[in-house]
Each structure stands twice: as structure tokens, then as C-alpha cells.
């Protein structure tokens, strides 16, 4: 790691910027607003919840740029390395509004206007990634942008109307030159680094280098998408001395399919993993699309979701129920453990110093096995689960041949419902067995009461989720989720 490595290079729109002496704990939002006085991007929460700070990041993908919306408020500046950053200031050309902006004006999509730059950027990314608009996917793309004024209807209309102008814009014209510039930056350094204010950010591009850095800095904090970790900086005002990013590590970005499993690198984001997972388990579609918001899914990783060992993460119960395992690595050594063994106690994991999650191995679906995952939250979009239940079930001749049930939100760690499973296994799959197993759930969990839900509700709704599973597998006559309506 020579001195020449100690720089973060990125494109602000078309112009190359180099960061050398900026505190690596600085977020992209603060960098834009406080350092560059680019104040078009707003702060509404600094916690990833409102989308006012949405910017678009472009990354080379073959000879194209892949554009994604992210929350600049919880993104460390170092993560911009090798990327193109586009903010609301870059859309208008001279006096000419971009089609996205013009559509918002035409549809009366802004009132106070504070959420508007964020919406514009999310819509811009949507327009880049979809050749035509469709209500459901517009909602999926904008679920992380809150507006307190409009009630959203004119914004949905604007998202439809922005397709009336040709899709080509100044960014498509510059695309190939941007690809080249970014590729050049990416080739220059194996490990990008930013050191200032006594803090360092490392972004290695291969797993061996990552393992080395972690050995060298056992106190380092791993950061993948940062959608969880960076809140420590913005909300709790922590100073993190050494940040090691997995987001450039090539091996950790792979989604591979083997004969029996889907293998996800630990730095694979929800959006990147979505296709492969849904192909195996179509029912994950709803859970993934309701996990966080589009911005969070663009940034956040499944590795980070397991890594932070939160009791309310949505993927851990899914992975436990699916019998997934983790490959953990420390230096050159690797070991494989079932996901459920990773969680030991509240926020305590099986991870040793300098060890990290390398891969997540998800067994493939089998035709005779059914899988369902249900998320319960106050708000349907972008909300943390009060309870999240995942169920894998195989029936044989009306009997329960195998069953895996795990819940999030119900205990201090994501946990298997052992008693409940026991009450089902080998039993006839009928109303009375299921009702009995629902009661057994009381032995598995003594959930907490908090502002999201009371202990009573958590337990009751989790029991009822098992009943929903029963009903869903019984018949397809009734649509069984509110999300299927309207």
C-alpha cells in the first residue's frame, strides 16, 4: 500500500475528483453539502429513511453504466472510488430541465419541494433501468422516498409521464467515455485508501488483500453497503478509526450457481442477489422487495444483514429456514458453519477477530419442498419487521416430512422455532396439527414489547403466520396477503 494509493478517485458527473485529506467518516451527503456547497441534495433524516438525500451512482458494467439510487447520508465518501456520482444539479442543461424534472413540474409533483431532488434522482435511476414505466415497479423504486406534502399521486403520474420524451439524454451520450474513465480509475489501484484525521478507509479489490488488512487491523470495522454501520457515525456520532470496505472485492461480489446451491459473495447486494434467489424461491420476491427501500437494496448486502447480527434482520430467518450456511474466512483459513450457528447472543456472533463472512451458500429449491416468507410491519414498505417468519416444508402423503421454521423479531437473535417444528414433524398436515403447533410457538419465543409491537402481538401474529402458511398451501382460492390486492 504505497502512498500513491492513498486517494479516492471518482467522477462527479464527468469530472474526475480526487480525495486525499477528507475524514473517511464523512458521508457523501456532508461532502456534497459542506465541502462542495452542492446543496441541491437535502438531508431529511441522515439515517436512510426518507430519501431526501438520494443521489445516483454509476458503475461500469460491460460497456454500459449501471445507474443506481443510493442514500448519500449513509454512504461513506470512500465508497465513491471508481464510480460516477450524479446529483440533482447535473440533470438540468442550461435552462432545459431533464425530462424527469419536467414531468415533475408538469404533474405538480412538488409542494414544499424538499423531498423533490431525492425523488428526481430515484426517478432518474428508474428511467435509466426501465424502458417503460409500470405502476408496481415505480412504487418499488420510490418506496424509500418520503413526501409529506403531496400524497404521492402526482409523483406516480410524473414517473409515467417522464417517458414521453426520448430516453436518450446527456448521460447516454457521455456513457462510453464515462465507462472508460471509470475503468481506468479502477485499474490503477488494487486497494483504494483514504487516510485523514487519524482515520483510514481501505477498499481492496481482492479477497486475499481484504484478509490481510483485517489481520493487520483486528480492530477494523468491516463495511459493505454501510446501511447499518454508518448510522453509528450519523446517529451516534461515533468515530470509526479503520473502515475496511468489501464493496470492491471481486470474489465477494459474485453470484454463482452450483449444482446444489446458490453461492452469494458476502458483498452481494439485495438487488444483485434478487434474481438468483427468486428463481429458486419465488416467494422471496415479496420479502426482498419490502426489505428496506430501493436505495437500501441497492447498497445493502446480505452479508451485512447477517454480519450485523441484528435480531430484526429479515434475511437471517430466511437463511436459517432454507438451511443455508456461511463460509467464514480468516487470513488463508476458511470454515463453513450453518447460518443459525452464527448467532450466539444479542449482537454476539461466531466471528473471531479478523474473521469475515466470505460467502453465503443457499441450497437450491426442490420441487417437493415448499417455501414461504412473511414480513409483518406497521407500514408495508420500508419498515423494520415486528416479526418475520420463514417456513420450509415438505409434505409426504399428507404428513409433514420435513419442516424448518425460523423467525426474526421474536428473540434476541434470529431463531429456529424448535418446539413448533417438533409439533409438526411426522404429523398429518391439517387444521388441528397446525393449531397445536401454533400453541407450541409459545415455548419457542418470549418476545419483547417495544414501539414496533407488543410481545402479545408478536406472538399472536407469528402463530397466525403459521396458519396463513397452512391456508396458502391448502388452496389458492383466497389471495392470502394484503399485498396481493389493489
Amino acid at each position, binding site marked *: 500500500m504505497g502512498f500513491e494509493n492513498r486517494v479516492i478517485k471518482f467522477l462527479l458527473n464527468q469530472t474526475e475528483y480526487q480525495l486525499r485529506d477528507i475524514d473517511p467518516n464523512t458521508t457523501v451527503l*456532508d461532502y456534497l453539502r*459542506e465541502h462542495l*456547497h452542492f*446543496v*441541491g441534495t437535502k438531508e*431529511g*433524516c441522515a*439515517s436512510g*429513511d426518507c430519501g431526501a438525500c438520494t443521489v445516483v451512482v454509476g458503475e461500469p458494467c460491460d460497456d454500459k453504466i449501471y445507474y443506481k439510487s443510493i442514500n448519500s447520508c449513509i454512504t461513506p465518501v470512500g465508497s465513491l472510488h471508481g464510480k460516477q456520482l450524479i*446529483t440533482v*444539479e447535473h*440533470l438540468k442543461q442550461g435552462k432545459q*430541465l431533464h425530462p424527469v*424534472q419536467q414531468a*415533475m*413540474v*408538469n404533474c*405538480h*409533483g*412538488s*409542494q*414544499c*419541494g*424538499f423531498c423533490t431532488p431525492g425523488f428526481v434522482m430515484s426517478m432518474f435511476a428508474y428511467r435509466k433501468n426501465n424502458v417503460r414505466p409500470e405502476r408496481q415497479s415505480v412504487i418499488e423504486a*420510490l*418506496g424509500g422516498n*418520503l*413526501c*409529506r*406534502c403531496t*400524497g*404521492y*399521486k*402526482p*409523483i*406516480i403520474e410524473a414517473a409515467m409521464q417522464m417517458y414521453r420524451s426520448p430516453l436518450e439524454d446527456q448521460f447516454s451520450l457521455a456513457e462510453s467515455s464515462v465507462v472508460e474513465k471509470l475503468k481506468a480509475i479502477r485499474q490503477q489501484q488494487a486497494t483504494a485508501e483514504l487516510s485523514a484525521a487519524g482515520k483510514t478507509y481501505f477498499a481492496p479489490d481482492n479477497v486475499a488483500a481484504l484478509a490481510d488488512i483485517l489481520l493487520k487491523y483486528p480492530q477494523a470495522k468491516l463495511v459493505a453497503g454501510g446501511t447499518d454501520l454508518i448510522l453509528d457515525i450519523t446517529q451516534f456520532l461515533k468515530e470509526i478509526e479503520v473502515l475496511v470496505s468489501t464493496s470492491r472485492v471481486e470474489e465477494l461480489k459474485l453470484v454463482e450457481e452450483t449444482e446444489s446451491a446458490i453461492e452469494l459473495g458476502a458483498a452481494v447486494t439485495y438487488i444483485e442477489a434478487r434474481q438468483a434467489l427468486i428463481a429458486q424461491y419465488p416467494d422471496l420476491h415479496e420479502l426482498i422487495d419490502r426489505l428496506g427501500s430501493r436505495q437500501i437494496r441497492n447498497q445493502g448486502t446480505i452479508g451485512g444483514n447477517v454480519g450485523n447480527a441484528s435480531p430484526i434482520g429479515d434475511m437471517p430467518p430466511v437463511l436459517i429456514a432454507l438451511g443455508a450456511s456461511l463460509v467464514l474466512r480468516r487470513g488463508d483459513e476458511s470454515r463453513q458453519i450453518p447460518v443459525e450457528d452464527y448467532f450466539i447472543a444479542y449482537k454476539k456472533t461466531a466471528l473471531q477477530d479478523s474473521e469475515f463472512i466470505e460467502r453465503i451458500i443457499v441450497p437450491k429449491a426442490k420441487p417437493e419442498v415448499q417455501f414461504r416468507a412473511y414480513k*409483518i410491519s*406497521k*407500514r*408495508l*414498505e420500508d*419498515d423494520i419487521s*415486528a416479526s418475520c417468519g420463514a417456513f420450509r416444508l415438505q409434505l409426504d402423503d399428507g404428513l409433514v416430512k420435513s419442516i424448518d421454521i425460523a423467525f426474526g423479531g421474536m428473540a434476541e437473535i434470529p431463531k429456529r422455532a424448535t418446539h413448533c417444528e417438533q409439533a409438526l414433524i411426522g404429523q398429518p398436515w391439517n387444521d388441528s396439527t397446525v393449531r397445536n403447533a401454533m400453541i407450541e410457538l409459545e415455548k419457542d419465543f418470549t418476545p419483547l414489547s*417495544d*414501539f*414496533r*409491537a407488543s410481545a402479545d*402481538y408478536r406472538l*399472536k*401474529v407469528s402463530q*397466525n*403466520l403459521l396458519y*396463513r402458511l397452512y391456508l396458502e398451501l391448502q388452496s389458492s382460492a*383466497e*389471495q392470502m*396477503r*394484503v*399485498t396481493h*390486492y*389493489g
Partner: protein
Amino acid sequence: MAKSSGVAQVNGLAGQGVKHESAHKHVSGEAVYVDDQLAPANVLYAYVGLSTVAHGRVTRLDLSRVKAAEGVVEILTLDDVPGHKDIGPVFPGDPLMVNEGGEIEFYGQVLFAVAATSQRLARSAARLAEVEYDTLEADVRIEQGLDRNSFVRPSHTQKCGDATQALRDADHRLQGEMHIGGQEQMYLEGQASLCIPAEDDGMLVYTSSQNPTEGQKLIAEVLNVPINRVTVDMRRMGGGFGGKETHANQWACLAALLARKTGRAVKIRLARADDMLATGKRHHFFTRYEVGFNDDGRIAGLDMELSGGCGMSPDLSDAIVDRAMFHSDNAYFLPAAHIVGHRVKTHTVTNTAFRGFGGPQGMVSIENIIDNIARALGRDPLEIRKCNFYGDDDNRNVTHYGQKVEQHIIPDLVDRLEKTSDYQLRRRQITAFNKINTVFKKGLALTPVKFGISFTVTHLNQAGALIHIYTDGSIHLNHGGTEMGQGLFTKVAQIVANEFQVDIDTINCTATRTDKVPNASPTAASSGSDLNGMAARDAAQKIKRRMVMFAVEHFGVREDEVIFADNQVSIGDEVMRFSEFAQLVYMNRVSLSATGYYRTPKIHYDRETAKGRPFYYYANGAAVSEVLIDTLTGENKVLRVDICQDVGDSINPAIDIGQVEGAFIQGMGWLTTEELVWGEDGRLQTMNMAGYKIPAIGDTPPEFNVELLPDSPNLEATIFHSKAVGEPPLMLAISVWSAIRDAISSIKDYRYSPSLDAPATPERILAACEEMQDR
């Protein structure tokens, strides 16, 4: 539509759906909010230290570690305040800070402020204070305060007829109680101010505030200088919703004090969690009632007690609980009523204005009762609503506070909506759906809104404006109202454009400033365009009159031969551009600048007798909502909404529809997902957007039809016979809550009325479903 000459050449006259004046700046990021403002060199960043108990005495406040922290330049405690130390807006009770020895009355109360060289350093330093407390028992819930008779202001009673006797004589009686949750304003732009010290003890203040005049006065008072030394400048807010009516003041005062103390510009901006902890919200209410009604469904008498949870101080609670009482009839005639309003003190942040200002809580209370009557009689709630509407017959037209309902819009509006929404057909379809579905239930409800327009504090019903016309014909406009997204600047500019018959882009409406229009009222109570529009028109008419009189004299024509049209002025046979005419008027030494003024006529209210005419007029509307609930989980979805809203003759239909849609969704959030939860220790637990859930885009009903009631001019002489639109439609969302109850009620064939506190979260809905199943 408002009377414009109907000439297409003039763009942006009253009645046209012109775009928000800042729309192009919103979308390009060019619209400047307080925190975006280019700050002077050496600006300091202020932050506050907050209490961590709900009730107690500060026994030790040691700021030495704060002082020593990196970047810290100055510290401010209550002792450093040269002037007033209490910033209560109407009544005292809101100390600017609490010192050692002082009493803390809510978790998150300001102890001190610090100024440092960056926002982050200031925030970090503020956390270093060493504070100890003698903790006292805290009343966190309304019942606790109520049990102790602990009130921030005296209770108030409104009566008509003999409610006791009416209850006794009625065919049926019902009683019940209900909790109604509060609501966080959640303006997307948090509280922010920038104060720049000036000569002669002056202070220039940029603040995100709905009430620049009050901010100006309080800043002058804490600084101990005359009001004329302080200028407040307010271009736009990133949302206010009432949350910046009085609760913007404290931050501006603190920054001003630090600016005075350091001689440097000081900016303050609250992080979201602190904003939510330290600023007031919509009042939560606890309502108890007993109602008597007859076999025909008509209410005979009502005894209702409305207890508003005010938090630790009066703030605006007197008027807010009054407004809840004024709306406890909603659209229904109460032949005999006894309505009591309590202002309950709790050890939580003082609650404040929020769109509707108590009205929603009063209204949901009576709508609850109407639903309950319907179930008791086995009738569709819509029938019960209809038979209780105010009407001209049988003297059913005077409210319980003595105001006569003069314009009966609701009966016809409801009939119209019932048809356009296919209410009856859908009612049958939904009943059929509920018969065959065991897990999913649908609900349908039509609820009306009759909302009184005017500040109930009479003196606030006045406004001023200032207009200059320059020699190129461009017009400069100022008025006392503030722009928070509601489109006020656009509407007032349209009104002025209309007077001169010039394009709206001829008019530049700049920041609201206390040195341009003095002694302005807060922009609140939906009064923005009613008041400021009239004041601006007055100013425009004064100038226009001078221009006309000049033309009469100069060209020797009659007054009626001077016509403003099509961006031109025709004077007899002569036609010239408006700009040319302005130049000519100037050359002939006639003033092209004027102030305008307006005060609302007719209104009065006597608190002694609890009678009067507090409202100039009523704004009306109704909504039909259809919902779906999952009886296994309590999850729910609003499937379709149809609205008809009476805005009189709309000044700007596009903006009005935006207000209706936005208010509806905000009201829906209040009644469904937005839940404020306090711990027993009095700490707000839902203190960020991760825990407190306002509606997201997917909550917008897939079918959402909004109509402005056509051909229904305001009978009162309001600006172009329009009606206020800011608050009323929020209460249309009561239809969602009522529809959820309808769905729950279907579990037992609509025989019982579920009790369902607000907000109707999935958890509450599931509990209500289970209760219903067990009946």
C-alpha cells in the same frame, strides 16, 4: 371559477391551474432553504444539550467538558440571556433553557446551547455535559394528568339545550371512550435558523418558520432590544404543517443569543431525532361520551368530554382544545349538547399546532359515535350520517356554540359523492365479498367534513401586503404569509396578476420579511390565501386606482374607459403595454407602491357564554374509502378513495387538488401507521423515521379520485369567493378509519361496533378483530 376576463393570452390569472412558483427550482435543486443559504465567513454552528429525564430538578449541570471539546467557541445557559427567559407564545410556561436548580418537565428539554466550528463538533460537544437530576414522578399518559386534575389551562364548556334531559328522554343511549393518538408533523426539512448580527444591536434572521413576526418579537425579547432591531426573512419552508408555528422560535432565539454573544453568524439545525424529541406534535386526546338517540337514528343529546394531552405547557393548547370542541359536531346537528374540553398537563414536550389544530380529534370523536349508533340500530352508517346533517328545516341549523350554518353544502355534496363513487353498489359487493371470505374483510365508509375557517383567536384574523410596480412594469409582491409548499405565493401572485391582468411571471413574490410587512399573523388555520390574498388585492387595487385616476386626468377619459387586459392597458382608443403605462405613470410622479390590509369581518366568540360566530364560513367535503384488512395479522390496505371537496371558486384548481390529496394521505397516516410511543420514563421511543412511519408511496390508494365541488362559490365575500383548503381535507381520512371499523364489524355481520383507538395499527386491528370474534 374565479372571474378572470377569460382571455387566454394572460397567463396565470386567478382560476387557472398554474404551476407552483418554485416548481422548476424544486426539481433542479435550486430552491434555497435555510440550511442551503450561503453563510457568512466564520459562521458557527449551534447545538443543544437535552434533558434525559421527563420530570425532575437539575441538581448539577457541569459544562466543563463541553467547553473543552474540540471546536467549541461559546456556551449559552439561561443566565446568559439578557432579556426574557420564557418564550411561551400566548401564555408563559416555555423556558428557553433550564438551569442548574431548575425544573425539567419533559424528556428532551433544552438545558444549554453550544456554538462550535462545525455542525458535527457542536453536536458531539453537546453530548458531553455532566448532568444530574433529582427525579420526580412524571405523568406521561393523559389519564395520569386527568386523575390529578393537572391542567395547563382552565377547562371550557360549550352547551346547548338540556343534554341531561335529552339523554334521559332518548329512545337509546350509548356510552364509550376512545384514545386518539397524536402525530408528528414530520416536515421533511427539520428546524433550522441562521442568525447574522448587525449594527445597532441588530439581528438578521433566516428561519424556517410559519410565524416570522412572532419569531422576531421573541428574539427581540430574549435579546432585550426593541422589535425594530430584528429582521426575520423567510423564503420557504420544507414543510411546516403547524410544527413551525411556535416551535421554530426556540432555535432561532438560541442562535440569535449565541450570535450576539460571539459577534459571529450562527446557524442551528436540529438532527431529526432531536427535532422529534424536542418539538411539539399534534395533541393526543382521550374522549368520553354518552349519546342519546332515537329510533330514527337522530341524535337527541350528547355529553362529551374531550381531554387533550397538552404536554408540559399551554403553548397553543387553549385554542386547539377549543377547536376540537367546535368540531365535536362535525356536520351533525346536536339538539342538546354538553361538551367539555380539558387541557391536560403531562410531562412530555408541549404539544402544538398541526394541520387541523384539534379539529380532527373532535371530528373523529363524533364519527366514532355515529358509527356506533348505526351498529346499534342495524343500519348503514351512511344513513345515520345523512339523517343527522344540519339542514334548514326544523331549525336544525345552529351549532352547539351558537353559530348558524348558513350554507348547506354537505347534503348535496354527499349525495353526489354517493353516486359518483357507486357507494350503494360497492356496499352490496363488499357485503358479498365478506360473506365468502373468512380471512380478508373489506370495509367501506363515507364520512363528511365541515370545518370552520378563521382563527378562533379573533385578533389574528388580519393581514398585510406590500406591492411595488417598477418602471419596466415588473411587480414586486410581499405579504405576511409564508410559503411552506401549500402554494400560497402562487395563489397570491395570481390574485395580483388578476388585478392588473398581466402574466404571472411579471410578478416576483420574494421572501416574507418582517421589515416589509409588519405584525403578520402566523400562516396557519388554512387562512393563508383568504387573508393575504385579500391584503394583496387591496394593495393592488390602491395602485390600480391611482393609475386609473392618472389616466383619467392625463388622457381626459372616463374611468370606465381605462381597461387593464391582455398585459395591456387601453385608455380610450389608446392601447399601451402595461410596462409602458407604468413608466408613464412614474414619469408623471404618481406612486407605484402601496401597502394592503385586510381583516375578516363578522367573526366573534364570547368565552363567557361559549357562544358566537367564531368562523367566517365553513369548508366542506366528503370522502368514501374502501379498505381491506387481514384478520390474521391486522395488515391492511386502502384500495380506493373518492373525494369531493368544496373549495368555493378555486383560485388554483391544480394546487387545491394537491392540497386535498396531500392532506388526505397525511390524515390517513395519523389514523393508521403513525404511532407515537412514549416509554414509562417519558422518553419518546418513536423518535426517528425508522420507528415512526408516515405513509410511503405504496400507501397511496391505487384508485384515488379527487373532485372539487363545481359551481359552488363561497357565499361570503372571500377572495374570488374561494374557500380555504389547507386543513379541511385532512379530516376526510376519517373515512379510512371508519372503513376499517366497518370491515371489522363485518366479522359478526355488522351487529357490533368495534372499539378501535387511533391510530389503527395492524396490532390494534388484530386485537379488535379478535374481540369481535369473541362476541
